[in-house]
């Protein structure tokens, strides 16, 4: 049965978006969990898939590690029914997780198997977010196999941007024009001239910017507790992820320019030094 009622999905099938980066540790899993939770909060039935076979983590970020029975490899190999393997979030009716296998090697499934497995869920969800492993090998290829769109996560650092650039090239070769998410920006450092700005990053990578997330301690607190940061309405990062989720759905929400809103910041701008 088709449980979706929104209009944003393509005819008869949910959209599959791969979240990838090339470099590890830039925030792919946090991004996948946060956007999944945000889309679910916005009424979109969303499935997040952990494609990092052997090194799963999306389950702990979502606080669902105790409820895993089957995983994505079981679905790909036909060892269980598709709906036996997905776990519903405690916090949302609309958010589901398909965990990775922790004991298998990432080469155990191929691209075609992965694509077939993902396609089994398309009809039931508005959005399917696939958390890609770091790197550009088999695990990355599997994660991209069934994707309609891609989101590249990067941080404003030389190594992360370099790897993101590789991934842009690989995705273009697959006919996917990815969107860019710049994570962990520190506007104070940008102002000091010690961090690449959003414009710099966008200029270098030359792809569409879908959002910016500030470096924010609430991300770590949320990860400690296994609760996606978007549930914390006081978190700047959580709010940023919510806005990005809306942009994914096609809403035109401006990206904040990151200027300080403190009294001194406003005063500074009045004086022309902000």
């Amino acid at each position, binding site marked *: 049965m088709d449980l979706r009622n929104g209009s944003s999905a393509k005819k008869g099938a949910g959209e599959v978006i791969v979240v990838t980066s090339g470099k590890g540790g830039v925030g792919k899993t946090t991004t996948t969990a946060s956007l999944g939770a945000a889309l679910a909060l916005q009424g979109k039935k969303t499935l997040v898939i952990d494609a990092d076979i052997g090194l799963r983590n999306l389950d702990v970020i979502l606080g669902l590690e105790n409820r895993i029975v089957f995983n994505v490899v079981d679905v790909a190999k036909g060892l269980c029914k598709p709906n036996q393997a997905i776990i519903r979030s405690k916090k949302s009716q609309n958010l589901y997780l398909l965990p990775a296998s922790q004991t298998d090697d990432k080469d155990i499934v191929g691209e075609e198997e992965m694509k077939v497995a993902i396609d089994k869920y398309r009809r039931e969800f508005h959005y399917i977010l696939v958390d890609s492993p770091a790197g550009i090998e088999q695990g990355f290829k599997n994660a991209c196999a069934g994707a309609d769109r891609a989101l590249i996560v990067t941080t404003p*650092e*030389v190594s992360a*941007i*370099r790897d993101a*650039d*590789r991934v*842009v*090239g690989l995705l*273009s070769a697959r006919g996917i*024009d990815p969107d860019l998410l710049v994570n962990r920006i520190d506007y*104070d450092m*940008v*102002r*000091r*001239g*010690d*961090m*690449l*700005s959003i414009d*710099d990053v966008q*200029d*270098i*990578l*030359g*792809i569409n910017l879908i959002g910016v997330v500030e470096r924010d301690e609430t991300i770590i607190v949320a990860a400690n507790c296994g609760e996606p940061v978007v549930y914390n309405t006081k978190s700047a990062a959580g709010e940023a992820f919510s806005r990005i989720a809306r942009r994914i759905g096609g809403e035109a929400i401006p990206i904040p320019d990151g200027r*300080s809103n403190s009294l*001194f*910041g406003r*005063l*500074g701008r009045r*004086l022309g*030094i*902000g």
Partner: protein
Amino acid sequence: MFTALKEKLFGASRSKSVAKSRLHFVLVQDRAGLTNEEMASFRRELVDVIERYFVIDEQGFDIDYERAGDTTTLLINSPVVVKRQDAIHGVAGARHQAKSRSRKKRKDQRASQAASTA
């Protein structure tokens, strides 16, 4: 605000510019798929060819790969030193059309910019 004030007074820190130029260097090589040696010889040969027709300032000579959508553009920036009358004729008679590309930050002193789509 105080950091901004400090910058105005004492000048900005520069690590961002270092990051940019290092990225620029690795990305040109990554995107072109050329080795260090190939890149160096590509550069040398280009300079040789351009010098046959123009007087150039080799210091500012720069090769870049730029991506917009699904097209990648090879950008060769070559500052031309126009001193003599014959050099001006050289520029006017050149078949290479100087094309101004979109990069805002490149609106600098570079005298000539030849672009070709790869």
